[in-house]
């Protein structure tokens, strides 16, 4: 029997407020090690606040967070496992890539110098040219190379594709998957609002909105639970009765219901009976539906309050 594994990241009842803004609201989830997980949310959903707490830059006001079972804030052991690549490239006024790589060599216990140089070449970055003259895309690429070569057990990329052109983005996602294959023990968190773009690389996703958890699951699980069911309106209504409907649409005389099944067996049943067409829901659409549902609920709560 396999030993249970301590999560790479675990947050419990995490809340944080900036003045009147509730950035995080009782957030609880856990991420297993060795996965590529998307932290998905709209702008202002609380992703960056969460990441700042997770990377020890900010102390949570309520709740707690653990990296590999260790409390995070100012904990040397926990933070040694982490590499955080923020959404704004910051080189600490270092002159060139060479200097940055030299500093990173001392910052990350698992730093792979050769891999770093290889990645810099793959991203077509000049190693001795002043960083000041780099375009935004090039600056982002430098930080992505640092994150990939850091060897950190948990590497977080906040909005990794900001400023990158289409070719570089694809190259980054390919390199991420390659890195994951080379080091299966590493965990990656990609925080982004560009869901479709990262979907192909993800093993799982955590969706948050307005500081709350919308849902968390493995990608395969999402495909089994969240479905789009279409067909003759009467049949669709009959077959999906009792399921949680996220959105209903009428397209060319047929009814499409985007819904959450109560269990995976319901999906199997629908498929076997063949009365309706069913398809797993696209991750981005699912996120939009859940976010809209959350907005409606929040507004209702506010009206009540």
């Amino acid at each position, binding site marked *: 029997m396999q030993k249970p594994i301590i999560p790479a990241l675990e947050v419990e009842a995490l809340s944080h407020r900036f003045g009147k803004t509730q950035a995080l609201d009782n957030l609880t989830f856990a991420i297993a090690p060795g996965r590529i997980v998307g932290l998905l949310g709209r702008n202002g959903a609380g992703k960056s606040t969460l990441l700042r707490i997770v*990377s020890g*830059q900010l102390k949570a006001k309520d709740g707690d967070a653990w990296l590999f079972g260790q409390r995070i804030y100012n904990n040397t052991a926990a933070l040694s496992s*982490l590499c*955080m690549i923020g959404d704004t490239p910051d080189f600490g006024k270092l002159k060139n890539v060479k200097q940055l790589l030299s*500093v990173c060599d001392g910052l990350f216990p*698992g730093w792979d110098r050769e891999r770093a140089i290889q990645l810099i070449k793959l991203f077509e970055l000049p190693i001795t040219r002043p960083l000041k003259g780099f375009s935004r895309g090039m600056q982002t690429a430098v930080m992505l190379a640092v994150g990939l070569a850091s060897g950190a057990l948990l590497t977080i990329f906040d909005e990794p594709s900001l400023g990158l052109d289409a070719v570089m983005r694809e190259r980054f996602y390919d390199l991420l998957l390659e890195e994951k294959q080379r080091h299966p023990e590493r965990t990656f968190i990609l925080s982004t609002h560009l869901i479709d773009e990262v979907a192909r690389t993800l093993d799982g996703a955590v969706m948050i909105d307005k500081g709350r958890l919308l849902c968390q699951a493995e990608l395969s699980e999402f495909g089994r639970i969240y479905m789009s069911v279409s067909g003759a309106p009467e049949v669709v209504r009959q077959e999906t009765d009792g399921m949680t409907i996220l959105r209903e649409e009428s397209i060319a005389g047929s009814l499409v219901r985007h819904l959450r099944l109560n269990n995976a067996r319901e999906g199997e049943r629908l498929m076997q009976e063949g009365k309706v067409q069913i398809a797993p829901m696209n991750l981005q659409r699912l996120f939009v539906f859940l976010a809209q549902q959350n907005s409606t609920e929040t507004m209702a709560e506010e009206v009540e309050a």
Partner: protein
Amino acid sequence: MENRLAPLVENHNWFTLSRFGGCMRFHRIRKYGLALLLALLMLIVQALELTLAYFGITEYRLTAQMPDLPFALALVFCLALRTARQDTTFLLRFGTPRTSVWLSNVLSLLMAGVLYLLLSIVVNVVSGAAAVALYPQCSDIFVAQRYQLPVGEFLAMLLGDVWEVLPWYLLWLLEYTCIIYLLACCLRRWKGATIAVLVGVPALLITLIVLPTLQGVAEAVQSSDQGELMAMLFRFLGWLEKAADFTAENWQWIQGGAAFVSLVLSYLVMRGTRQPE
């Protein structure tokens, strides 16, 4: 339960895990260059002075033989402002523990100060030796008895002087570095309030001590009571003397105590600062 962090923690020491080595490497790249540049600037100024003296344009006075503490402190202050802001933010962004960032900040500031202090000795020794060597050729423009010594004897005397004061200078540099770093951390966290305190506290002292005394003197002058006026003046002078004596006698302890308190406070201030903003 299997914990994938365990091998990492078991196989590395605190130095590696805390990223202290990387922090110090970052500071070395960022800071020591400025100390070298300042020393080079000092050397150029000295060389220029010597050249001008050699060609009879100005006189050359052999004055700066001691380690250059004031400039070292000015350098530490400039670097501390940058360290408390940009450098700390850079290191924390990667998820570096605050303890190692703080420790590396203080140590790197001290080391930059020490480096400049030692370089200033080298510059002074070199320029002093050059002046002594040039003295026989143009003695009318070099103003000091010391030039008449042979170079070897002069250097021995100079190094003897430096050796005597260097431990004290290093101690003062350490103490002032702690105080300056606290100041930089406070300026980073509460800029307005820190400036207000820096200006306000001396102003408050003047208001509470000097102004009532002056008021009393003015009243005594108005009442034309010469005896009372003199007594008041003596009382005030006596009090000032006592305060000055106490400060002079205990200055080392006051400075040391302030440095220790500053060191502790700087950690607390830096630890509680929201970074990056």
